[in-house]
């Protein structure tokens, strides 16, 4: 970040600002919203983790290879796949959305960064998380679950 170093700019801004009120609110409201949506966010994040794991395995990529492919730090991906409380960077979620070819907004909701506007979205995420159990090889069922869910994300 390169802040303006021109003293004239600063003086002009200071004079215009004139130590008046600058408050922007909504803070408490926003945090209360966070509190309300937190349980849902934790549940959808389980689906996000499974989606990433299955998609990665479906393409036969290691975490390291995926990290190179997405240009995302390996630690970020490891954190994502192993810690359900891990909060990913928006940039990482954007990159994963591009990789999966699904709308980034949907993945923001799924990863817990933003809130779902309808309960159906969360329900579908839960169903997906429940359907797809981890195995060494991706089964046909997992493959189908992954394909169905990616289709769902793209359609809605």
């Amino acid at each position, binding site marked *: *970040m390169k802040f303006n170093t021109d003293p004239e700019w600063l003086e002009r801004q200071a004079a215009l600002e004139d130590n008046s009120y600058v*408050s922007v*609110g909504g803070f408490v409201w926003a945090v209360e919203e966070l509190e309300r949506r937190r349980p849902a966010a934790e549940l959808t994040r389980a689906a996000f983790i499974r989606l990433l794991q299955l998609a990665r395995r479906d393409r036969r990529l290691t975490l390291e290879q995926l990290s190179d492919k997405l240009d995302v730090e390996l630690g970020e991906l490891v954190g994502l796949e192993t810690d359900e409380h891990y909060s990913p960077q928006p940039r990482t979620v954007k990159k994963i959305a591009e990789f999966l070819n699904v709308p980034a907004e949907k993945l923001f909701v799924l990863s817990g960064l933003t*809130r779902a506007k309808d309960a159906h979205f969360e329900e579908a995420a839960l169903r997906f998380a429940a359907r797809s159990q981890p195995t060494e090889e991706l089964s046909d069922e997992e493959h189908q679950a992954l394909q169905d869910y990616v289709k769902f994300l793209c359609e809605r």
Partner: protein
Amino acid sequence: MRTHVTIIDFKTAKPVEAEVFDEVTVDHFLEAQQEWRPIVLRAARELARRGARELIPQHLHWDWTSKAPQLNVLANIFYGVSYDGKLQGLMKVETVGEYCRCRLPEQDGKPLVYVDYLEVAPWNLKPLAEALGNTPRFKAVGSRLVEAAVLKSVEEEFKGRVGLHSLPMSEQFYLRVCGMTAVGRDVAKQNLLWLEYTPEQAGRFLSGVRKP
């Protein structure tokens, strides 16, 4: 991120070196709560006693400390301005979420940095400092925070687009001092005024070149 910036000492009218940083912790919220709130309350009581109700700040109900532990949960970015280790201003912005889309017809739907919260320390606000018989301590803290929001927008490749819901008392600051566009009242957000920067307006704010 920790960057040196200049703000102006009100008494000497000279620039002094402050810091803008994004490693905001719960301690900063505790500091704001413990040091700012009693001053705001004292000043508000004094203004009420004088009958100057229009100068009483509208954010008295804010209570940061009870919520602070949850602030690291989602994609929130916080900026603080400090001088000599003391917090002078605090801002929270979002780069994803339901408010991070432009509403101005000419840039409708484009991504923006949403300023969810912005406040400067009460000793930097003229109405509050004067109510307590003081002069403000520093000038331009609010402008530095707005500058940080615009720079974040540029960094995110949003070209300087910024949006916010201003509290009524601050509307003139965002319109007149920052040069943002008032898009309209948001009924879904306590009827607060929604303001936006276009890339051109943000560029003018950063460079200081005013519209001819």
